[in-house]
């Protein structure tokens, strides 16, 4: 059904988008933005590498104590549930990028919202079922550690506060990144609502997706190291 050729004003934003004037063409701008995001992702990976190195070295010092502490303080079921939630959100983010490329605006927004909701679930589960009970029982890192297991089944050893220090700091920094990811996803969903993204212009969806996948990647490593092993 041929309609009068759409005038510029009626075309959606993603059709009329032209690259910034200091770039030579659209392709360069898209590739440049993606390279910039990948470089930013490496800085995030190196940030978390500090946490993993701290974990590795302190684990070398207190090998068995860490396993006992992890088994006692952390509930692996919650960890596994959170991992599943994040994996699903990763899948929906990848789907939203696909939807943008195929100009399926509806699917794009739905997938973005699902991912954001999954992120929120992850945070709620972490705060509600993990952080708050630990805070109540004083299972805090370092000096303010005053854990006393009433059933007496578990004798805390001196390196528990160190394990909890690694646990609290690593998951807190990761949680912060999940929060920022959720806000970014909501921002992209809001822009998708205004038809900003289409086959010719979906840079923001792609890059926020990459960031979200990184957050998921870090959790893929954090979960077994802290909860299981």
């Amino acid at each position: 059904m041929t309609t009068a050729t759409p005038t510029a004003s009626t075309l959606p934003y993603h059709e009329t988008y032209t690259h910034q004037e200091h770039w030579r063409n659209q392709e360069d701008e898209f590739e440049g933005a993606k390279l910039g995001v990948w470089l930013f992702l490496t800085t995030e990976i190196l940030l978390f590498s500090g946490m993993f190195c701290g974990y590795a070295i302190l684990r070398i010092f207190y090998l068995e104590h860490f396993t006992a502490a992890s088994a006692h303080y952390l509930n692996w079921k919650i960890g596994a549930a959170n991992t599943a939630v994040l994996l699903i959100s990763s899948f929906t983010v990848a789907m939203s990028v696909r939807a943008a490329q195929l100009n399926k605006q509806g699917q794009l927004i739905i997938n973005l919202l699902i991912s954001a909701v999954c992120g929120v679930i992850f945070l709620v589960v972490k705060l509600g079922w993990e952080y708050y009970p630990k805070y109540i029982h004083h299972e805090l890192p370092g000096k303010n550690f005053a854990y006393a297991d009433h059933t007496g089944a578990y004798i805390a050893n001196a390196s528990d506060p160190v394990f909890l220090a690694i646990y609290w700091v690593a998951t807190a920094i990761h949680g912060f990144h999940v929060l920022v990811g959720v806000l970014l996803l909501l921002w992209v969903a809001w822009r998708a609502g205004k038809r900003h993204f289409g086959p010719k212009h979906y840079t923001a969806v792609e890059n926020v997706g990459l960031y979200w996948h990184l957050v998921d990647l870090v959790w893929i490593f954090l979960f077994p190291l802290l909860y299981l092993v």
Partner: protein
Amino acid sequence: MNAHAHAHAHAAEMPHEDPGHHHIASFRSLFAVLVFLLIMTALTVFTAKYVHIGEIGNLVLALIIAVIKASFVCAIFMHLLHDKLLNSVVLLLCLSLVVCFIGFTAIDMTSRGALDPTREHFIGPPPVAEAEINAAIEKAAAEHGEHATEHAGEGFSEEFAPPDQPDKAAPEQTEHH
């Protein structure tokens, strides 16, 4: 680089055509990866809980599974397979630095007692702190009897001086003030 003019001067502006053919991932491949990742998570939980091949063995096994999962996420979800090679090079460069960082630090930390056993001896909290922890536990257990909800955090004494003599086993009693 030398003086002759660059024969192949690029056309000033590439004709404005379709912004390059971007790979579009199929639904089937994305969903297959999701299912694979969930299975791997279940696998890692299973191996951690039921397969016991020593502290280090479990650690290495969990890491291998995590690396497999991570490489799938990177390759397909993050389109690294169908992207410019530069992005993958950037990622590999970063991972090699992470390995360098952890590896070299671990070399120093693990070879502490290599030449001189005394350097292995750890003055740190273990020998002294246990006394504090047990004291805290008895106190908490006693208070628990009167259903005290809040007990001041005195798990650790403020500062515990390391024992004076390296071979003195009994932890030094520090008065609580």
